């Protein structure tokens, strides 16, 4: 209470206080106006900017990876499919301490050192806001365990994905190939936006060759996410376009027959339908389970596969380059006829060796005692080397190489799967280029029996055999017959392509050779007689052995004495029925020794399976399309 003595002051003080209160009000209003201006600035003037920032916060673009096309064999047997799997992903941006998080996750989910290493490798190179896969193919139990504990792991989530699965395991693995994680190098060659959300890409085989068709088109989804990155709802989406299904020309049953026939041997079998170039069998043994590579193979298993002496990862059918050996004699003989330098009935004498004029070197026949007088037919039936030394010399290397070339022996066949290597038909020009040396006559001799510089892949040999069987129709081998749209079911057949038609001088020449090849199988002296005596159809074939290492002059070749890995490769080419061919086969068994004894029975099993078990022996004539 104011005292009476300060009454005068009281009025003064009241006035002073009222002034100060008014000042305070003005001060308040001015500062409030300042706030209001600030808010107008944020909410009106800069509203558009902040509205965009707000949308950027909540709206995220998520890729919808397309479903990869399935792969079927010619009879609709499923060879490659997609199975759902759950994988564990981490978004680095949302995790404070990645290493600690992984340690904590270990208590719930098995994470191997390999998983962690792979994760860290990708962690270094990928962008912070993109999920990185830590573990794939979680078990149902692991998914459940994580789901319960998910709140403890911001930035870690389970993604449902489809992964590639090959239900037939190792069957035809070298034809099909497999998919694996996209690596750095592949990233540079693909349209990265189309692979948004896709982990896998075709690494080898058909999976690689038809990657574009199998992959499809990525879809886009606008999703609303919260600050923790969890998707709350879908705002807009463009669905992905699934990849097309592939229907192969391969026949899984015959493929299995071929692989089982090779058994423990190392080697390759290629079978082609000569009518349309369809590859029925493309086997390379030993193989491996492609499913190992899909989820990321662990390094121990991988090194075991890579370092195995049997080279299971090596695609012998497409990349193995072998000397064709005596199988080439059919073609050399045909060349002799077509160039008119051979009189079919004219014999030469085979003493077991051959010698060039002015040269001490003895070119040996496989039969030490010699074949005696040999004409063209018998030269093929008994596979006389001396006859072909002589014929090759007569033809000369230039005619040999230009005759063999249209059969595709010096080139890629152009098959529609990845990894094929070209064979080699030597020529003067080639030798000058590759070896910087002139051509020597002795090299012509050994070219005549398919030794020396000659190299051929099992695929090219089968293709050349098919070409021979069809009187020169060199069709491009094909492994995919058609694509199928999984949504509409529309099927698009792939055309049969004629690589080249081999110029034919006289059909009779071809007929003669084919007849001689049937004698190889069916005559009592034929080198492949053991598969011919009980065959219910006519087979034309030619055996071959290819030397792995040279034998010195005057040295005995005793098979039993040589280690298995130094033994000759066994080869066999055949087609059947001989005069209306429906299958052409090339078989190579590494270090198999004898073509007739080891390779021919394998070819027989494959032909039986196709012609008898599958009933193609009774196909109407020209059932297949030919261009």
């Amino acid at each position, binding site marked *: 209470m*104011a005292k009476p003595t300060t009454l005068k002051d009281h009025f003064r003080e009241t006035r*002073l206080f009222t002034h100060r209160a008014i000042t305070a009000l003005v001060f308040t209003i001015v500062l409030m106006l300042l706030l209001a201006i600030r808010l107008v600035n944020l909410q009106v003037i800069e509203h558009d900017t902040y509205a965009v920032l707000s949308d950027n916060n909540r709206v995220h673009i998520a890729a919808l990876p397309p479903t990869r096309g399935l792969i079927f064999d010619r009879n609709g047997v499923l060879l490659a499919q997609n199975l759902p799997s759950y994988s564990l992903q981490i978004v680095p941006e949302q995790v404070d301490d990645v290493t600690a998080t992984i340690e904590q996750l270990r208590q719930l989910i098995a994470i191997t050192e390999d998983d962690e290493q792979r994760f860290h490798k990708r962690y270094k190179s990928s962008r912070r806001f993109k999920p990185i896969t830590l573990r794939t193919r979680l078990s149902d139990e692991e998914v459940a365990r994580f789901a319960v504990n998910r709140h403890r792991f911001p930035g870690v989530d389970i993604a449902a994905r489809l992964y590639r699965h090959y239900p037939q395991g190792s069957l035809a693995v070298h034809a099909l190939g497999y998919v694996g994680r996209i690596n750095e190098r592949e990233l540079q060659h693909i349209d990265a936006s189309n692979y948004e959300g896709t982990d896998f890409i075709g690494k080898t085989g058909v999976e690689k060759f038809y990657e574009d068709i199998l992959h499809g088109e990525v879809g886009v989804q606008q999703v609303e996410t919260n*600050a923790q990155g969890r998707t709350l709802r879908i705002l807009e989406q463009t669905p992905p376009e699934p990849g097309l299904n592939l229907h192969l020309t391969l026949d899984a049953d015959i493929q299995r027959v071929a692989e089982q026939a090779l058994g423990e041997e190392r080697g390759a079998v290629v079978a082609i339908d000569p009518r349309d170039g369809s590859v029925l069998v493309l086997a390379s043994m030993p193989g491996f389970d492609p499913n190992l590579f899909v989820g990321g193979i662990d390094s121990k298993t991988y090194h075991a596969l890579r370092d195995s002496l049997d080279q299971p990862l090596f695609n012998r059918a497409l990349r193995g380059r072998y000397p064709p050996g005596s199988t080439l004699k059919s073609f050399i003989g045909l060349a002799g006829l077509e160039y008119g330098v051979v009189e079919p009935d004219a014999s030469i004498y085979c003493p077991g060796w051959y010698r060039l004029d002015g040269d001490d070197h003895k070119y040996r026949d496989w039969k030490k005692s010699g074949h005696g007088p040999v004409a063209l037919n018998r030269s093929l039936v008994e596979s006389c080397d001396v006859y072909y030394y002589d014929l090759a010399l007569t033809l000369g290397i230039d005619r040999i190489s230009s005759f063999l070339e249209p059969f595709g022996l010096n080139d890629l066949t152009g098959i529609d799967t990845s990894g094929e290597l070209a064979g080699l038909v030597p020529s003067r020009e080639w030798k000058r280029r590759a070896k910087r040396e002139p051509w020597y006559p002795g090299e012509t001799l050994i070219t005549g029996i398919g030794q020396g510089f000659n190299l051929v892949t099992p695929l090219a040999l089968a293709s050349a055999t098919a070409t021979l069987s069809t009187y020169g129709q060199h069709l491009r081998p094909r492994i995919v017959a058609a694509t199928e749209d999984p949504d509409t079911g529309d099927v698009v057949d792939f055309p049969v392509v004629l690589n080249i038609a081999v110029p034919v001088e006289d059909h009779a020449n071809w007929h003669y050779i084919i007849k001689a090849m049937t004698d190889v199988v069916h005559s009592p002296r034929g080198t492949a007689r053991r598969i011919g005596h009980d065959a219910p159809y006519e087979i034309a074939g030619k055996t071959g052995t290819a030397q792995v290492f040279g034998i010195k002059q005057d040295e005995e070749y005793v098979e039993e004495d040589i280690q298995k890995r130094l033994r000759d490769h066994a080869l066999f080419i055949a087609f059947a029925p001989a005069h209306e061919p429906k299958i052409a086969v090339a078989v190579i068994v590494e270090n198999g020794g004898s073509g007739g004894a080891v390779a021919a029975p394998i070819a027989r099993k494959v032909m039986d399976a196709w012609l008898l078990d599958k009933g193609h022996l009774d196909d109407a004539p020209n059932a297949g399309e030919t261009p």
Partner: protein
Amino acid sequence: MSLLDTPVHDLGQRRRSLAQNLHIDPPLLLGLLLLSGISLFILYSASGQNIDLVWRQVVRLGVGFTVMFTIAQLNPAPLKRWTPWIFAIGLGLLVAVLVAGEIGKGAQRWLDLGVFRFQPSEVMKLAMPMMVAWYLSDHPLPPTAKRLAIAGLIIIVPTLLIARQPDLGTALLVASAGIFVLLFAGIRWRVVAGFAALGAALAPVLWYFMHDYQRQRVLTFLNPEQDPLGAGYHIIQSKIAIGSGGLYGKGWLNGTQSQLNFLPERSTDFIFAAYAEEFGLFGILVLLAIYLFIIMRGLLIAVQAQDTFTRLLAGSLVMTFFIYIFVNIGMVTGLLPVVGLPLPLVSYGGTSMVTLMAAFGILMSIHTHRKLLPR
């Protein structure tokens, strides 16, 4: 200005029978109830439709209004008599909290009294203006230089004690509560300007005594984009929330920044941003109008107060309330550094709200215990 011009006696006579006897000031009560309503509405949305949290706020508001009504019944005269004791106790508690206080969120602010935990600095928010007003009120105003110096000491000691905890926001409020008393007491503007200059000169010294996190807040305020995911995140997200609200807002429960958890502390210190996002500039103007209404009413009560002590106290309490509003909104809109102050009566939270309601109780007490002068 109309409120100031309202004839005091008409208003008093008409309401005397009920409001005056209950010691309630209806306009002030109306403003506070409006704010409480807005608070519950926005809390329901900002908490992610957490009705439990809304109920807890209802209980707190209930406690707050009870405290306000209780204090309003007290006559200001005994309040003035108790002032030195209240201040002494508050000062003692501040020392106690430094010695034996509990540490929460990296600062010593709490005193555990067994039944409930308690922030002594809250007492000081009221004790400080009371003490300064008490000290100045028995002598002619404006105060002499000597009295001003002693008043300055009264202000500085508790402020430093609170700043040591460290609680910069509360220290700021407590200091300004005392300073407002000095300003209302009529110290010359020249002197004010001199102190302002001195303050500016001492800023580097203050910087030296700051904790790292406090310095970081200032740095973040100066350049929030420098650390968008760390310290600057709050401000950036808050500005995005406010800015994207636009004129009309995104609508109740539809603020993506707050509903999708982008806005941190959205039911406590940053509730203004959640409100601005959902109700836009118009919603904000309504809120500011309510605040302004309360402040104007409070200043009117101060002007109509009948003695120096109540007048100075009322003026200071009202302006402290405004400081809360200005610092919080300034912080949320990026005008001021991040200082942990709630938006008064809207933010979720207990202790400071009870103190604020006690202050409004004092205002009502001052207004309703006036002796009506004969005409």
